[in-house]
């Protein structure tokens, strides 16, 4: 019984890049609408009604992006009104809204992605490509907090010794630069110990393997196959031009063929996959629990 975020990281990453890939390289309004609503729904399912600031920021950005286009671009046939001797057109306005839907949708997806993909999962994915790369990443992830803590400690120690005579900017900058220079020494000095510790444990004597923390289970393979199949249909629909929409000079939608409709349905199914998985898991769990 797994929730979507507990599926194999590779399967999750493939799903994620399929969804955002379509959203980024296509501008068909119906797909964009599906992407944005799916992204918001997914984010809400994961976080509930918290993260108010994120929502506020995204929707403010949405407004700015949607309004910017008609003010800058004056293409299009249908003039709504004239502002500062420049025509504001319906086409440009709708194009702006469409791009905003696309960008905000992708931003929502990325927000959820960073929540799901912990450093550990990223390491698993990079490790599948190269164990060495994954080790370098892991060491980098370790040293960043280590450095910031040490420099905070040094700065506190220097303050408590009263080395900086006054609270002025020049003194402050001089102090910071000295702390930075000693941090370099400190990093090198510690690097030697870390290198010793690595060598003592046999680093560099042969080919590295990597511990696999995540296995491929039936569910992962199903998710992966479903993702690729649905992506295939959508991509075919976009690639053959069955889903195309023109804003300029006037809006023109191509009549939907069977392939076009299947493309839209597939994309909707793709976007809703995690929601389906979560709901299915919850229902099954309810059923199983009733038997306990």
């Amino acid at each position, binding site marked *: 019984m797994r929730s979507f975020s507990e599926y194999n990281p590779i399967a999750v990453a493939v799903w994620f890049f399929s969804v955002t890939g379509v959203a980024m390289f296509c501008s068909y309004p119906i797909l964009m609408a599906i992407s944005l609503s799916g992204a918001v729904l997914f984010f809400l399912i994961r976080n509930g009604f918290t993260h108010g600031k994120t929502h506020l920021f995204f929707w403010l950005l949405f407004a700015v992006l949607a309004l910017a286009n008609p003010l800058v671009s004056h293409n299009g046939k249908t003039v709504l009104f004239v502002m500062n001797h420049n025509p504001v057109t319906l086409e440009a306005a709708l194009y702006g809204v469409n791009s905003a839907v696309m960008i905000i949708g992708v931003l929502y997806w990325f927000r959820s992605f960073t929540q799901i993909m912990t*450093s*550990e999962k990223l*390491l698993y994915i990079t490790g599948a490509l190269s*164990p060495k790369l994954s*080790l370098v990443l*892991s*060491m980098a*992830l*370790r040293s960043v*907090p*280590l450095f910031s*803590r*040490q420099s905070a*400690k*040094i700065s*506190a*120690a*220097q*303050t*408590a*010794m*009263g*080395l*900086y*005579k*006054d*609270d002025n900017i020049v003194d402050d900058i001089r102090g910071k630069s*000295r*702390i930075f*220079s*000693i941090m370099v*020494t*400190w990093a090198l*000095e*510690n690097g030697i*110990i*870390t290198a*010793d*510790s*690595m*060598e*003592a*444990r*046999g*680093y*560099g*004597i*042969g*080919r*590295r*393997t*990597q*511990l*696999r*923390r995540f296995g491929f289970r039936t569910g992962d393979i199903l998710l992966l196959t479903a993702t690729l199949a649905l992506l295939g249909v959508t991509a075919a629909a976009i690639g053959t031009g069955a889903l195309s929409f023109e804003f300029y000079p006037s809006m023109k939608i191509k009549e939907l063929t069977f392939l076009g409709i299947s493309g839209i349905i597939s994309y909707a199914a793709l976007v809703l996959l995690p929601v389906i998985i979560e709901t299915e898991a919850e229902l099954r769990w309810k059923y199983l629990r009733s038997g306990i």
Partner: protein
Amino acid sequence: MEILAVRDMTFTYPTCKEPAIRDISLTLGRGEMAVLCGATGSGKSTLLRLLKRELAPMGDMSGSVAFCGKALGELSDRESASDIGFVMQNPEQQIVTDKVWHELAFGLENLGTPPAQISRRIAEMASYFGIGDWINRDTAVLSGGQKQLLNLASVLVMQPKLLILDEPTAQLDPIAASDFIATLRRISNDLSITILMAEHRLEDVVPLCDRLLVMDGGSLIADGSPSQVIAALGKRGDIMCGMPAASRLYAKLSGSGPCPLTVREGRNFIESSYGNTTRGLPQASPAAESETALEYSEVCFRYDRNGRDVLDGLSLKVSRGEIYCILGGNGSGKTTSLSAAAGLIKPYSGKIKVFGKKLRDYKNRSLYRDCLAMLPQDVQTVFLRSTVREELAECNAELKELPYDLSPLLEKHPYDLSGGQQQLVALAKVLAAHPRLLLLDEPTKGLDGAAKESFTELLKRLKADGLTVVIVTHDVEFAALCADRCAMFFGGRIVSEGAPREFFSENSFYTTAVSRMTRGYYEGAVTVEDAAALCRMNGRKES
């Protein structure tokens, strides 16, 4: 079976004339736990590193080292990496990766072990060490003791036959240190892994080890069971200063019979050899109340708005010219209380007064001029320059004003000094601001016995010059030696307070070894000197 055999080993560093270690011969059998002790600079680390091929320093070496009957140089890379494990002093810097499980896997990954087998060995190791609860954590959030345990586990996961440890407990607090040593004893008993460890804090390890090796000036001067070695070297004060209290008392009184190592043996030794007609030492009269140097009243502080109170109504008074020790467990908020007095953090309620003036009335950092200075726990954080001379020049420290001599160290890089030397240089920098109130955070961490003794003397001299010192420490024995008053910190405030003698006699667990040894037999004996004086006053029993 012989695991390690060293014969006539002499080693000289490339730029030195004198050998760093000379004519060392020793053998270790399977499952033996041997402790190597000696003053800083006696060549312990050099010897240990020479036994691990990957870490061996450059230089001229003569003599031979055999591991399981094979010369060290003939081992394959894999054997050398996995069969000889090495744990270093600093818990933090030995850790390579960001997650606990990844750190455990690191060595096996290097050896190219199949993933399924790695999972299995990690699972075993985590269960054996009880790491299971924190295996998914970031290595950065572990405590010092946990980090060192992780370092040990990630070496043991490679199934070594010989485990070498270079002062593994120097950076740990006393409780974590004794847990770590007990773990070592357990793996030596359970898995018959041979252990060779250098150590200068010997109270916990000497009673548990099978063999004690003593180095002095690069040579091995003693090799035998702990009680034999102590009986033979009892007159050497520089070596005895790190030994268990019972052994030091035995050496001081030139006792006869087997040397006591533990509190229980020490008690038997005292009760069987000395009477107790005189039960207590004459009490010193309490010092007259003088002006207050540092005062906390009802100070509360928390790091997070929704967190718990780290300081919870802390109130205390430190009089001018006294040495005040704050004792307490890990994470009890001791260090936070010092940071509050140094103005590094702002309590949300309560008042702190330094020399009668509120902290926030010290404007423009005047608090740090001729008034208060703090020496942090990690003294390396004090250094910003590349030589000691530049460090001292930066803060206008006068060499002549210092109560100790730093002139031999002037051209060295501060990071190259030993722990004790770093402490002295850092203190010189701090003293250059002519503070009247000195705050010290764990000043004895990482110091060997001799350095600790001289630091105690130094504090007494500073006190005689009129300095007020507030010390936060785990080190009960150190507090008993130097403090005028001790206080126990728990749950964000002070729960008990008193002069060391009454303070430690009233505590029954959190107290010095001598106090536990003489409880009920003598009154108010807390240091080895107290106990020795009482024993001498009572005289040896006729047997």
